[in-house]
């Protein structure tokens, strides 16, 4: 099929450019969970780096996560699990002048992995490990990058559907580090390019 066959095609991406704050800041959400939301309260901070190790002061991250029960606030999540009023699971944050970002939320629960089909030996677990889905846009990126934040010392990571698709040596780029002083605080850095480059997914 050629692109001119008359079939509708998804609109092409374009960069957000340097001035996205004008249009996107009204919906910045860095505290995802209000006080009534159930779950383990966490804070995640980090920096975005470019190929030279310089921080990126004009990045915007969007977050999408399940609640602490492992349910997404979306009509297609038909699991028989409670929805938390006041928790949409959406966040949007920008990096500051130092390329730093910060958000607070609750640790997501486990959501289902795809059913195992075909040959035995594709040994992912029926539930995905807790994770936060991330879109990253910056000036210089012609379309978004998609990645995930996982949590350290979580037994479910070893058989997680998505982590198993990543070369073992690179999996650590997706796993946040817990602060030594404060167990509810995590650091997760995002390296767009270069050594220790973050794993990005084609979704």
């Amino acid at each position: 099929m050629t692109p001119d066959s008359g079939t509708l095609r998804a609109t092409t991406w374009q960069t957000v450019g340097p001035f996205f704050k004008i249009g996107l800041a009204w919906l910045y959400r860095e505290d995802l969970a209000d006080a009534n939301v159930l779950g383990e309260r966490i804070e995640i901070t980090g920096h975005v780096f470019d190929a030279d190790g310089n921080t990126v002061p004009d990045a915007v991250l969007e977050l999408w996560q399940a609640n602490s029960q492992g349910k997404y606030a979306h009509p297609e999540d038909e699991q028989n699990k409670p929805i938390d009023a006041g928790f949409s699971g959406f966040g949007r944050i920008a990096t500051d002048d130092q390329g730093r970002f910060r958000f607070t939320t609750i640790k997501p629960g486990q959501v289902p992995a795809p059913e195992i089909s075909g040959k035995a030996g594709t040994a992912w677990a029926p539930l995905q490990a807790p994770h936060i889905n991330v879109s990253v846009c910056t000036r210089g990126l012609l379309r978004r990058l998609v990645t995930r934040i996982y949590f350290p010392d979580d037994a479910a990571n070893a058989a997680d559907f998505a982590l198993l698709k990543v070369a073992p040596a690179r999996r650590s780029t997706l796993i946040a580090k817990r602060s030594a002083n404060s167990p509810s605080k995590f650091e997760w850095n995002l390296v767009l390019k270069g050594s220790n480059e973050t794993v990005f997914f084609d979704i």
Partner: protein
Amino acid sequence: MAPFRPYRRYHPGTQPELLHPAYVSSQKRAPSQPLVHLPHTISEVTGPVFGDELVDVKASDLTKQHSAEPIGERIIVSGRVIDEDGRPLPHTLVEIWQANSAGRYAHAIDQHDAPLDPNFTGCGHTVTDAEGRYRFVTIKPGAYPWQNHYNAWRAAHIHFSVFGPAFATRLISQMYFPGDPLMVNDPIFNCTADESARNRLISLFDLKTTMPLHALGYQFDIVMSGRDATPFEQDHGAHR
């Protein structure tokens, strides 16, 4: 639980490569490692749902956000958000931002020596109606110079951000104007290999939505990924 119905992958060539050297900023920011293919799971086929609390009439008329009207050519930009199968996508959030008529953004880091307009911020948002329609009133943005290469100018454009029904359908793009001579030398407009995909970023002048004695109408339809019929794409096992 029912199997996941994945969204269709982009047709080859219709999206920009991450590294497009003519757009200089992509050289330091586009990843060097190949992306890891991830079949869609419940995490990708769900996405944020925005309710009617975000509907704000003032936010869709960028000429009425200050005490007086902004300077410039008043325009109406409207269209539909649909998927690749032609189905309208109702109740989805559409956000826009743009330069003023002189080509200057109301942003602290825009150093272009063109006047700011105290009556124009350049920010709007709306939610599509039951037929997937949206409509903004604004002024036509000006062209502006940038540092990418000698005598580089961005073609006039309006930034668009659309969510669609899922994390997988997220789209941020730019809308251009028909007949703009700057598009041919604009590396951002030209970053997509497929010419017809590029040309779909150009709005159409539309007499039907032009308001007599008031504002010119431009039509810009936005297409989001369609849905595969099969419940779950074949998975090829372990990492590559």
